[in-house]
């Protein structure tokens, strides 16, 4: 961890340009590995499907056509992935569902990373606070995440925002723990001691020298948190306490389709498959990123 990772360069000088070129080289060779390329490509596809849902979707996701209810998937019948019990087009609902999953995943990753980095850095600097913090974090992390999320949602009520808040709370400890461990390890590194000896203030050293070196492991954690958040949101929604029934989300489609399991198995098949593939993909992507950004922690995690 003593070297600055290539992606952490400030890029303000010539060395920055050279580093950016190296980073591109490393990125290109990383993408040449099929698992990484497929992982990255499929993830990009889901994000694109979510972002472009209004443009691609053949129907409005809430458009009800009772006469077309429970139609099986067909390439020619107008409903690529069939329809649900209200005649809504599953393909369109799936696209909008991708949007929900991406919004939840990305929000939870960004929020829990920001809060987790702040807590972890602070914990790494203040010994007393750090110990106290790690106690709480270990306590929360030893605990099945969905249980805390359920308690928060019981208190806050079911909505997209509250699901994001609950899941952020649940995943902050993961980031904080990683950043805390990195900070403790980095604080005695020579380049940090040198920066301090040169008169760098605590905040400046923490933000300019330590923070960039924790970003690799945070990105790796973020990939896994994205996957967990997608599954957790779908689980909460499936349990009837996540997103409201009217939403077009993969969890809602699954929960509604479960009453038509035998008559219309396609309703539950496609959203389940989508969650499974997205999570599988993020796990593979996370493993690949870990090899690239955080080779040392492979054994620890």
């Amino acid at each position, binding site marked *: 961890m003593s070297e600055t990772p290539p992606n952490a360069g400030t890029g303000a000088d010539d060395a920055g340009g050279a580093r950016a070129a190296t980073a591109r080289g490393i990125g290109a060779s990383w993408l040449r590995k099929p698992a990484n390329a497929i992982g990255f490509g499929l993830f990009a596809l889901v994000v694109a499907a979510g972002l472009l849902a209004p443009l691609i979707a053949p129907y409005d996701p809430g458009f009800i056509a009772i006469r077309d209810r429970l139609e099986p998937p067909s390439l020619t019948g107008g409903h690529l992935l069939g329809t649900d019990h209200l005649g809504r087009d599953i393909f369109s609902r799936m696209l909008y569902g991708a949007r929900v999953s991406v919004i939840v995943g990305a929000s939870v990753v960004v929020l829990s990373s920001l809060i987790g980095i702040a807590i972890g850095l602070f914990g790494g600097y203040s010994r007393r606070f750090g110990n106290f913090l790690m106690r709480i974090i270990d306590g929360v992390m030893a605990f099945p995440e969905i249980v805390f999320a359920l*308690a928060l949602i019981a208190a806050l009520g079911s909505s997209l925002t509250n699901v994001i808040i609950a899941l952020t709370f649940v995943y902050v400890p993961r980031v904080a723990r990683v950043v805390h461990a990195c900070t403790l390890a980095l604080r005695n590194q020579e380049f940090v001691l040198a920066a301090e000896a040169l008169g760098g203030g605590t905040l400046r050293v923490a933000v300019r020298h330590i923070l960039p070196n924790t970003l690799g492991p945070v990105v790796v954690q973020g990939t896994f948190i994205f996957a967990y958040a997608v599954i957790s949101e779908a689980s909460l929604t499936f349990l009837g306490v996540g997103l409201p029934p009217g939403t077009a989300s993969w969890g809602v489609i699954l929960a509604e389709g479960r009453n038509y399991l035998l008559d219309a198995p396609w309703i539950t098949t496609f959203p389940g498959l989508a969650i499974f593939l997205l999570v599988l993909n993020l796990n593979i992507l996370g493993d690949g990123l870990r090899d690239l950004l955080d080779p040392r922690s492979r054994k620890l995690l």
Partner: protein
Amino acid sequence: MWAFIVRRLGGMLVTMFIISTLVFIITNVVPGSPAALILGEDRTPDQVAALNRELGLDRSVPVRYVQWLGDLLTGNFGTSYYNDNSVASVIAGRLEPTLILTVTAAILAVAIGIPLGIVAAVYQGTRLDYAAMVVALIGAALPNFWLGLLLILLFALYWSVFPAAGYVSVFDAPADSWRYLVLPAITLGASHAGVIARMARANLLEVMSADYLRTARSKGVRERQVILGHALRNSMIPTFGVVGVALALMIGGSIVTEAVFAIPGVGRLLIESVLRRDFPMIQGVILLIALLVALVNLAVDIVYAILDPRIRYE
């Protein structure tokens, strides 16, 4: 050894205290009063105030917190808002299905995950390894509610091999009860089997490159004996820790599995209570789950220390 156990027990108490405090904060510092939620739309302010007084919610939060902690220490978990049953007795009535489901799933996950991981490590880099790891990756990524629905569709609705839902206690009908457990246990155990397989493989591979194994090989010990006699035993120590973590997580995972298979366990109780905003029941269930998780972790730590004496002195 006793010093170690006492230290871990102390740590467990601290963790339980932290979790109970977090649970109290989450369920008490809510926007909107439980009384208003219970009474519904056509409530009058007088009714709300009266119910608040009845539920003890008219006192300040710190006072309630101290009272609540004191009650917990004396074994009083409160009464449900929904009906006036005692939280402890309702939970006790729901415990059996959850425990039996979780333990069955854990046994299944270990029975599948560990051999899979060992085979993958022994045949590292071959197609067998690759196939085992693909299975493990798939298992780890399957959302368990979806897996449950697929199993119901295939094994209950299409082929009628197992019942689609419900629970029969071992104590009521021993011959019949296992049939109700098969699909839920697979649903709950599959993802953990995948994780355990990956960890078992990684741990065994790490041990296989150790110096003492090179020594054993150079002495002429057969590879089979090297793996079974030396490597496997040492790699099982960290793997055992992973199994403990998996068991703790399965207690949480059983919430979803119970919902899929309509099993009347603690997880279903939690969901019902969340939907009813029955906060004393929610607190009780969460504390129970926290206690189970803490006990599992304590047991894992102790077994760990027995297996590996170095851990006791850390």
